[in-house]
């Protein structure tokens, strides 16, 4: 069963490619650029410094062979691709970055950044391992403060407290908007496809003017809502699709093989769960005027429920509440090859799903197309199982 794409579907898809030219223009105008990789980036500080933040490429297999000259084969494709694109100079955004910011999330990235630091000016922030206020917050706040100082020193500027507060408010606006985007998936049938949801999330990052980014994203959300109300939603007039939650991180290079395959088989990906799940969107940074803004930023990012944190109860809570709120029929964990944190944590994700009485399937993949058919078969089998459960009315 095919899914009809709304008319502006391609718009956000093209933004990423077009972003390259936008970035070139920005650089010509004298703007400085910070390349980043991860949800732990305290983007508010980059914004407060008047710098442009861009997510660096790490989603295609093209750069992996050259990365493997320096990096081991049995390593996460995201890490290899991120390094390979910088090495090969095939990531235009890395090329234009005046500073690259990494973070010690997982062992592989942590060590890869040591090598990347030879290719680009680099700053790595050290994350705590335990997301616990008493044990970690003070030190984590120091890391964020040190990042602020690094930006000030690298770009010869001063970041005022007022600018940070403004950036916090702006960051929160973006979070609310992205939460609304996810919430389009709560409709039954959903008012958006999973692929489109991702394409907007992903594409919007490459509109570097934040006000323009918000305007376009909001217009898109409103268009989806209006279409839905007018009976022209992607699933209007069709059989209600199975509702799938995708769990995991670093999905960029696996989108078509997994989300595409699910939706081509007639089911709908209605929400995503992981570091960029709904709780990261809904958990805003404290805007109160008497709060130390750096501490407020530190508190927020300490709560990102990435599998590198231990214990990671926040993520289990997110899985359970998303299953309820999005009325999920089945959960698919997508693990990138040899990603130890997500790989091991998928067992606890499975347990959380079990508690909710929702089937869970683990997929492990990389950025190469070789396993496309195998994944498709497994996905179809899983959807069949969900379908028969639904007919049998087994859901709790």
């Amino acid at each position: 069963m095919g899914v009809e794409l709304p008319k502006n579907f391609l718009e956000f898809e093209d933004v990423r490619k077009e972003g390259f030219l936008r970035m070139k223009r920005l650089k010509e105008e004298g703007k400085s650029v910070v390349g980043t990789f991860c949800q732990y980036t305290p983007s508010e500080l980059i914004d407060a410094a008047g710098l442009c933040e861009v997510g660096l490429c790490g989603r295609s297999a093209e750069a992996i062979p050259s990365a493997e000259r320096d990096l081991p084969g049995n390593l996460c494709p995201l890490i290899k691709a991120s390094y390979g694109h910088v090495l090969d100079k095939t990531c235009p955004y890395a090329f234009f970055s005046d500073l690259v910011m990494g973070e010690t999330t997982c062992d592989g990235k942590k060590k890869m950044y040591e090598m990347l630091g030879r290719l680009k000016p680099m700053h790595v922030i050290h994350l705590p391992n335990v997301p616990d206020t008493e044990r970690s917050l003070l030190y984590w706040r120091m890391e964020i403060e040190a990042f602020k100082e690094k930006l000030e020193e690298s770009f010869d500027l001063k970041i005022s407290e007022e600018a940070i507060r403004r950036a916090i408010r702006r960051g929160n606006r973006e979070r609310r908007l992205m939460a609304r985007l996810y919430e389009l998936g709560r409709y039954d049938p959903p008012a958006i496809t999973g692929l489109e949801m991702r394409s907007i999330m992903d594409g919007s990052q490459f509109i570097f003017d934040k006000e323009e980014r918000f305007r376009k994203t909001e217009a898109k959300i409103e268009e989806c809502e209006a279409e839905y109300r007018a009976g022209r939603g992607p699933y209007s007039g069709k059989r209600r699709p199975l509702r799938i939650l995708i769990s995991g991180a670093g999905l960029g290079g696996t989108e078509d093989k997994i989300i595409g395959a699910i939706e081509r088989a007639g089911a709908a990906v209605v929400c995503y769960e992981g570091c960029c799940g709904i709780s990261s969107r809904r958990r805003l940074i404290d805007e109160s005027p008497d709060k130390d803004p750096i501490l407020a930023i530190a508190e927020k990012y300490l709560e990102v429920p990435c599998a590198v944190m231990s214990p990671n109860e926040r993520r289990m809570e997110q899985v359970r509440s998303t299953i309820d709120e999005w009325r999920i029929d089945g959960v698919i964990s997508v693990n990138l090859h040899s990603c130890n944190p997500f790989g091991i944590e998928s067992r606890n994700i499975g347990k959380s799903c079990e508690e909710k009485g929702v089937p869970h399937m683990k997929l492990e993949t990389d950025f190469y197309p070789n396993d496309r058919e195998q994944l498709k078969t497994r996905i179809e089998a899983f959807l069949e199982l969900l379908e028969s459960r639904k007919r049998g009315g087994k859901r709790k």
Partner: protein
Amino acid sequence: MTDEEYRELLSRFRNIRAEERSYLDALKKRGARIAGVFCSFVPLEILDAAGICSVNLRNGEESSILLSGEDLPGNLCPLIQSGYGELFSPRSSCMSFSELVIGETSCDGKKKMYELLAEKKELYLMQLPQGADRPYARKMWIHECRRLLRELEKRMGRTICGEELRAASRARNSYRLARLRLMQLLRRIPAPLSGEELFLILEGTERLFPLPGRISLLCELTAYLEERSRLLPEKRERKRILLTGCPIGGVSEKTLRLIESAGASVVCLENCGGLKEVYPMVDIDREDIMEAIADRCLEIGCAVMDPNRRRLDRIRELSKEYRIDGIVDIVLRTCHSYSVERFSVRELSEGLKIPYSSVEVDYSRSEIPRLATRMEAFLELL
């Protein structure tokens, strides 16, 4: 010690599993409190001062991997899989004798495995910083060490004073020194014992004797081997290899033994279980002994640290000290920290003009023929 006693001791150490079980069983029966640890970052001085015996949970058992079932991914470090698998072992083991496991957030795999372990066993987790050089790293780790002390005080129902910590640190330092002296015998040409014998002794003494017994046995062995080496003519024949990387328990047969049966000598074990954990000593003259204990840990040149210059500096020094002809870097499957850091070690070796080779291994026996060919080819190059 006579030649015969030495040979007997080695053959005992070759089959320590059963003996280790009865040793721990006897300890337990005498009312000892036992805690298990996986990693050199755990400050054992604090456990010693609390009167808790520590056992090493890196058992190197291939058979335990299967016991871990489907809880863990297949493509994971065998040390983690087998350590976790011991939880399900039907026979008694270091894991079953431990009332508590003291974990640490060194690598991702262990960090996340501990979450699953905590469902079956009492776990206390220490939080390591991601690098030793951050201005706050010491403060944070000292805080973690004090937190562990409080936890153990609570568990033992008594307070532990600074002098107890100092005495424990002194004893651990003597133990480290005794291990170091033994290992330093291999600086001689020719080495008075093989790398395989060295590894057996290091493992065996640690697993079968209480701390004071280990120290005296190591001293006795060192004296015996020193005497023996006097009888050996000074001539250089075998190529001298430095092993670095992950701990080699469970893979010594396919690394150490293969290298030595191909005609070279492993004269330096830089990894954990070898020199890595003995080098930094606790500075027992410091006023705040807990700070000295914590500082020692942060000197360990483990690849989980960002950056990890300490390891590279150590390899550079050891290469001279032990007159090394070749460096072999051992990486356990999906140990990304050591695996990615090979880039830097290789580069260092090139700078030192010492041939370098690295192997990624797990605990299975099936790879032995492949690795043997690899090692022979490498040694031919030397």
